């Protein structure tokens, strides 16, 4: 049977905040837009973003975008590109007001202005007193934004392919992306979507680690497609472990708990963050808190029978405060940790939460395919959100900056695409050999017989990643990890499905996801092994210092030959003076 084909001006892979915000710009400009999502769009992982979105509105405490920029550059451990960061922090303010006008129900102060919460890493006056910069819609900010954007896209007649899995990008001999091969999960039928422009907005990849706060859908699909298309991923060694996941389960206990006065204790009841971050204490940057917790556990001050976690104490707070400001935390702790935080502290441990690295883009969302500092972008290919790396987070992302990233750069990618389609109005001819290659990759899963199961190899892979590429990283352990993941990649050829049915074959979808996770996992493990310094979320006890002379540069990883290369950090902002690297102390 002939492969079905459909044509669009733009193909967007992923329907979280970045994809939907880009789609809205395009649909409103009367472009023909396809959005492909493996789950129903409002079930994208953006829905889980509880915390909020940063913008220097100064509604609670004095603030301005330049302070926000300073905090973001400092938080990035000076690996963030300062032109992109300046742009994001300036755009944050109109972005939040635009959302407000679109109907996002932000929490309010008594004077009617948007309520803003204090988060870690926020300061007034370039490193001074705590700032309050995070705008929230109770603890449903992500849902409120996603729901609003989805409704507006429906009104703008964006074409949604719900429950379609993107298998691979299709490219021509010149490397130009022509769309993607996708799979209808409901029927098992492939579909070729041709597009003049393609935007990857497939989100993160926390599922590569055994303990993660990410939903099961976060398997790095877009990042892996980029690798298989011969393009690089940037800064993949920088993976943020949220300091407070429910121990052994991964579910997130929001940073807002500490923003409202909760604090961490070890087995002796000691409030240990006082010694690691004397000023910010429990509101220090996430990597600092995560590393402090792991240090406490490694040095024998962990809690529980296995001494493998610490405790988050909130039972000194008024029960009414917990109910009003932190709804959901109490029940979540009861179900997944078996404790009532009003009475007892919550067992917590760092959980893989957010990847700073991704598909390298400029601040217009255009994919940058080379390590050349002055290199050009790849025409017609864009990426935004957690699957991308515009390099606003550098080595470490600040709380409240991820929703901001997807909104600002999703919108800007949309606007860039409008310009591109205006100047390039025709589809390029398909390369049939490349389509055959993608179909072959999909068809490989029809092979029957005995073999390794998807679930067994996935379990082995995720444990390997956690043990060898997690919070603490030393040379020998990591080198062993890279070899183990390479061996796991070889084993993929021996994996066989246990279910060969066509309709809603979760076994096949999970096999495709496993391939993606292993491809992405190797980019993380390889990039991390070779960065011989400690910076932001990348902590090397064998190289404990940040090394600006040698390592203030971005890592680029290509799948072919597991090749690495590096490119310079863009330290020159757009309109203000550069923030030179300093020791990052909170």
């Amino acid at each position, binding site marked *: 049977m002939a492969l079905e084909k459909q044509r669009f001006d733009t193909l967007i892979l992923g329907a979280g905040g970045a994809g939907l915000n880009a789609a809205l710009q395009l649909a409103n400009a009367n472009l023909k837009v396809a959005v492909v999502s493996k789950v129903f769009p409002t079930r994208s992982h953006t*829905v889980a973003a509880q915390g909020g979105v940063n913008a220097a509105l100064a509604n609670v405490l004095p603030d301005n975008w330049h302070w926000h920029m300073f905090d973001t550059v400092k938080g990035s451990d000076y690996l963030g590109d300062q032109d992109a960061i300046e742009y994001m922090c300036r755009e944050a303010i109109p972005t939040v007001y635009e959302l407000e006008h679109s109907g996002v129900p932000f929490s309010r102060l008594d004077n009617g202005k948007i309520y803003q919460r204090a988060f870690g890493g926020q300061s007034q006056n370039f490193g001074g007193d705590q700032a309050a910069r995070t705008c929230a819609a109770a603890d449903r900010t992500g849902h409120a934004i996603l729901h609003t954007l989805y409704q507006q896209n429906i009104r703008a007649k964006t074409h949604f392919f719900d429950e379609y899995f993107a298998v691979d990008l299709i490219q021509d001999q010149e490397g130009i992306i022509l769309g993607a091969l996708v799979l209808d999960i409901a029927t098992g039928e492939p579909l070729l979507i041709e597009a003049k422009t393609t935007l990857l907005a497939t989100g993160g990849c926390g599922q590569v680690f055994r303990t993660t*706060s990410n*939903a099961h859908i976060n398997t790095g699909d877009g990042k892996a497609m980029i690798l298989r298309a011969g393009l690089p991923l940037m800064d993949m060694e920088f993976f943020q472990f949220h300091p407070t996941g429910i121990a052994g389960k991964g579910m997130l206990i929001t940073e807002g708990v500490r923003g409202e006065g909760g604090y961490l204790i070890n087995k002796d009841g000691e409030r240990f963050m006082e010694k690691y971050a004397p000023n910010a204490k429990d509101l220090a940057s996430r990597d600092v808190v995560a590393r402090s917790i792991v240090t406490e556990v490694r040095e024998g001050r962990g809690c529980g029978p296995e001494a493998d976690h610490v405790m988050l104490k909130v039972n000194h707070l008024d029960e009414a405060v917990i109910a009003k400001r932190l*709804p*959901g935390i109490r029940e979540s702790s009861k179900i*997944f940790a078996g404790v009532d935080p009003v009475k007892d502290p919550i067992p917590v441990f760092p959980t893989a939460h957010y990847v700073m690295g991704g598909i390298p883009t400029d601040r217009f969302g255009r994919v940058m395919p080379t390590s050349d500092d002055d290199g050009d972008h790849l025409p017609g290919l864009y990426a935004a959100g957690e699957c991308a790396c515009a390099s606003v987070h550098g080595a470490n992302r600040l709380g409240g900056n991820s929703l901001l990233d997807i909104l600002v750069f999703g919108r800007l990618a949309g606007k860039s695409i409008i310009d591109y389609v205006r100047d390039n109005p025709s589809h390029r001819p398909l390369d049939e050999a490349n389509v055959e290659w993608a179909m072959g990759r999909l068809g490989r899963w029809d092979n029957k017989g005995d073999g390794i199961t998807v679930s067994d190899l996935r379990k082995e892979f995720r444990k390997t990643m956690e043990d060898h590429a997690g919070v603490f990283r030393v040379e020998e352990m990591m080198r062993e990890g890279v070899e183990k993941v390479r061996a796991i990649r070889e084993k993929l050829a021996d994996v066989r499905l246990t279910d060969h049915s066509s309709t*809603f074959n979760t076994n096949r979808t999970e096999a495709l996801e496993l391939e993606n996770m292993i491809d992405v996992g190797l980019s993380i493990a390889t990039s991390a092994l070779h960065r011989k310094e400690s910076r932001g979320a990348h902590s090397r006890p064998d190289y404990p210092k940040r090394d600006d002379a040698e390592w203030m540069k971005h890592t680029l990883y290509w799948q072919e030959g597991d090749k690495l290369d590096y490119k310079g950090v863009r330290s020159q902002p757009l309109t203000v003076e550069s923030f030179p690297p300093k020791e990052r102390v909170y």
Partner: protein
Amino acid sequence: MMIPESELKNIEKLRWQCRRGMLELDVLLEAFLDQHYEMLSPRLQRHFLQLLEFPDPVIHSWCVGGENPDDEGFVELVDSIRATSVA
């Protein structure tokens, strides 16, 4: 609209519908599907299919957040989901 009997038995479709945007719901709903769903009455199975159509934060508020659905029909189902072992 009445949900047809065939939809109640389409376990693999339901398994994909249990893929959500929140880890908590992934874990709880998939465990419920495996442990309890097929032993439910057709009435409660229909309620489960209806539940999956709600937005994630609503399902979360019922199954994890301690809130109760207004519709009595959902209360029994939500109680069973809350009682699912996720250890």
